[in-house]
């Protein structure tokens, strides 16, 4: 039985749910740390997540997790209820992130069937102390506030507005009452649209009825009483008038400037119901308390379900079988005896079409967007830049690019390595950057895009770039480069930093050359059939591109015949194929065969000899030569015949057979036969793997 399945379902659920919650929480915190404020919705979310974790951890008797969650919950309960002014957001974020790390670590232990035995008391103490601190601080400020004796309702800020709220002199408050043309229908949608347009120009928008979209009764209300909007803007009255009148189906508009007091009253009136639409759906304090936890995460909830990967694999196997059995039906030998098969063929065509579509869908299920992987990097950038006192911003693009689940698992580590390297070695200190006239905030771009069957992941920084001379010097000293300088392209020079011999050198970190663990990156990416390209411009930064295949599960292969066996050669590694004459082959004293193609000499490998296949062609002029290549060289493979190109589903060799030199995996052919996939890299350079 599968290990993950055998785990107690309760525990599995606990691990799964909590990891998801923590991930969500981490994202939220990182996103809001940048804005240096915590919206009510965010506070509520943290509070809710911690509450959930506390509950489930307590139920599963993981006391250290539940007590930590409890402490964080307490902290945020206080923040939520009292809105203390003296808050060090960065510190709060640190504490919560530390807490998240601790819980994640504990859950990681559970996942590996270990005891969750970590001690969370230092964190708890830390948080409790801080809570006391802000309690004291805000007690002081509360006194001051009370002395000022302002009406309590106004003191509470209902929301912390986002970016655009510079208090300028000529901001005016307006009240607009809009009636739509009778019979235009969908008044509520139109009203919403209007508000949406207004958002670009105005701030602090409130409207009545507030729940225009959610509540269908609002249509009636708007028809009878009009749609009232209050907002502040720097625009002149005429401009606003124009803005409104551009909308279709507006019958009348009553726009007037409001006095401050009136404004406040109106605002409060509006806020007794549901309020504001901000950049993210924010819900007013009063309401959120009543309606409980489920509303405010609206944006982040998707209609997703989580499925065990094993089940998916099984589904894919079944579909593969379906394809094979379909072939068996359509090409059944018994059919040759039948006379008229028109209808049968029509039916099988339809059948095949459906099966193909089904196969596509199953494949697409395995595709996962890079979002999670990319967003994890936010944390690393944050921690690194804090530690190194560098101001680094991570710019993420193309996170929606989808890659096979199996590949994603292999990407996280290399990207993390590259980002660490970029910040550690690439990005200069803020002082140095200032001296060079660069923006004090360094940027690291993380971009993904798909091109053809490949996905490119590009990591670019605007740091110092690689020092070509020094790399060259180092590489020569270590004997990594043999060619003369004039023959080396920049790319070749930069690529030497990926070699294992290069990275073990300590002195590297003195200059901007990347060092630590680059060979690990290369190994990881090569393991999933990808390549790494390095480019750099001095003073402008370094770009590292990872080219990876979309999926590991399906490759394009060429079927070749050797004796009675069929092998698959990955199409990507085939350079060319040709018929050779007997005279083309040169034999060296050791009996090794070689062949000359356009002035270059390639070794010849007879596949039937390599794989001990009987009854294969021996005569080189009767068979066909296929030149395959990879990074480390090229080789000629001698096979009986090429049978054609086919997409094949890659399957691992059975454990019992283990690893076989020269064979990377196996697959199933259309007729249901199992067939081996050739490991080109191993044939070219057997010593390497």
């Amino acid at each position, binding site marked *: 039985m599968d290990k993950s399945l055998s785990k107690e379902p309760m525990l599995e659920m606990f691990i799964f749910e909590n990891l998801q919650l923590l991930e969500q929480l981490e994202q939220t915190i990182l996103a809001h740390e940048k804005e240096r404020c915590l919206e009510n919705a965010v506070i509520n979310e943290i509070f809710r997540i911690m509450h959930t974790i506390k509950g489930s951890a307590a139920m599963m008797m993981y006391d250290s997790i539940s007590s930590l969650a409890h402490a964080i919950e307490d902290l945020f309960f206080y923040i939520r209820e009292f809105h203390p002014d003296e808050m060090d957001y960065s510190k709060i974020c640190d504490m919560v992130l530390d807490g998240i790390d601790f819980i994640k670590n504990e859950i990681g232990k559970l996942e590996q069937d270990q005891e969750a035995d970590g001690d969370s008391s230092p964190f708890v103490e830390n948080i409790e102390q801080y809570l006391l601190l802000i309690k004291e601080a805000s007690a002081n400020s509360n006194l001051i506030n009370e002395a000022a004796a302002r009406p309590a309702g106004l003191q509470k800020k209902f929301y912390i507005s986002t970016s655009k709220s510079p208090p300028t002199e000529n901001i005016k408050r307006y009240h607009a009452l809009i009636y739509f043309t009778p019979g235009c229908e969908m008044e509520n949608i139109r009203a919403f649209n209007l508000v949406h347009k207004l958002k670009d120009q105005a701030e602090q928008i409130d409207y009545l009825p507030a729940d225009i979209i959610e509540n269908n009764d609002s249509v009636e209300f708007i028809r009878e009483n009009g749609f009232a909007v209050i907002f502040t803007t720097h625009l002149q009255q005429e401009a606003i008038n124009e803005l409104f009148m551009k909308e279709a189906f507006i019958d009348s508009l009553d726009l007037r400037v409001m006095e401050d007091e009136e404004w406040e009253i109106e605002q409060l009136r509006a806020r007794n119901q549901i309020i504001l639409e901000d950049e993210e759906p924010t819900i007013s304090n009063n309401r959120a308390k009543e309606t409980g936890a489920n509303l405010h995460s609206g944006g982040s909830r998707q209609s997703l379900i989580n499925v065990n990967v094993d089940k998916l694999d099984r589904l894919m196997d079944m579909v593969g079988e379906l394809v094979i059995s379909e072939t068996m039906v359509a090409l059944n030998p018994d059919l040759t005896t039948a006379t008229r098969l028109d209808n049968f063929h029509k039916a099988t065509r339809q059948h095949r079409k459906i099966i193909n579509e089904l196969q596509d869908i199953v494949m697409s299920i395995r595709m996962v967007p890079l979002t999670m992987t990319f967003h994890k990097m936010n944390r690393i950038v944050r921690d690194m830049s804090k530690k190194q006192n560098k101001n680094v911003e991570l710019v993420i693009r193309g996170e929606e690019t989808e890659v096979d689940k199996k590949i994603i698992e292999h990407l996280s580590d290399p990207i993390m390595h590259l980002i660490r390297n970029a910040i550690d070695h690439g990005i200069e200190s803020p002082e140095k950057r200032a001296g060079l006239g660069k923006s004090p905030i360094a940027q690291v771009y993380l971009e993904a895009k798909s091109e053809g069957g490949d996905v490119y992941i590009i990591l670019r920084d605007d740091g110092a770039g690689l020092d070509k001379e020094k790399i060259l010097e180092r590489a020569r000293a270590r004997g990594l480069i043999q060619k003369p300088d004039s023959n080396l392209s920049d790319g070749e020079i930069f690529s030497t930093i990926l070699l294992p011999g290069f990275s073990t050198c300590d002195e590297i970190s003195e200059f901007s050359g990347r060092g630590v663990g680059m060979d690990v990156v290369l190994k990881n990416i090569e393991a999933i059939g990808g390549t790494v390209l390095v480019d750099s411009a001095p003073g402008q930064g370094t770009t590292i591109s990872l080219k990876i295949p979309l999926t590991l599960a399906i490759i394009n292969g060429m079927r070749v015949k050797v004796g009675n066996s069929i092998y698959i050669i990955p199409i990507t590694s085939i350079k060319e194929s040709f018929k050779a004459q007997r005279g083309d082959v040169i034999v060296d004293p050791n009996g090794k065969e070689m062949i000359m193609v356009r002035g270059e000499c390639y070794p010849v490998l007879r596949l039937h000899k390599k794989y001990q296949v009987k009854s294969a062609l021996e005569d080189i002029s009767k068979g066909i030569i296929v030149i395959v290549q990879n990074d480390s060289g090229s080789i000629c493979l001698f096979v009986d015949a090429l049978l054609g190109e086919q997409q094949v589903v890659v399957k691992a060799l059975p454990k019992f057979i283990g690893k*076989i030199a020269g064979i990377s995996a196996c697959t199933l052919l259309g007729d249901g036969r199992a067939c081996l996939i050739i490991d080109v890299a191993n044939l070219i350079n057997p010593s390497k793997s």
Partner: protein
Amino acid sequence: MSEILNEVVQQEEDTQKGKFLTFLVGKEEYGIEIKYVTEIIGGIQAITEVPEVPEYVKGIINLRGKIIPVMDVNLRFKKEARDYNDRTCIIVIDIDELSVGLIVDNVAEVISISDADIVPPPDARAGFHNRYIKGIGKIGNEVKLILDCQRLLSTENLEDLKYIN
């Protein structure tokens, strides 16, 4: 909850206990515990040869989308290879999540042998050296050799042989 589960497992084990699938390899009749057997494939389908494995590993087959290795038990016991005919069967056994097909000359039946009727094989020092035999079961006048599946599949063994080859 786990108690109930255990009970179910136990019951299942009980119904399988003492039952053996018997088959012919050469002249001898062998038995394997029924709990290891997942299915029997009648007739030999196309076997894809795999290089660099011992001779007795005939290759891999496609078992409804799952790729499993098959071994010829005749060759495994270092007997002469026999031609496959329509009585030849592949018994698929599953041990520790490892599925392997055993090519045997003929599948006979499922029989019950009580523990009391199983005697250990003679000592290796007495000149008996088939180490794949776990015991010898008596059914009336007949004798069945009970195979040790674990030993049969042990991969160390496979590796040893690889060396020799």
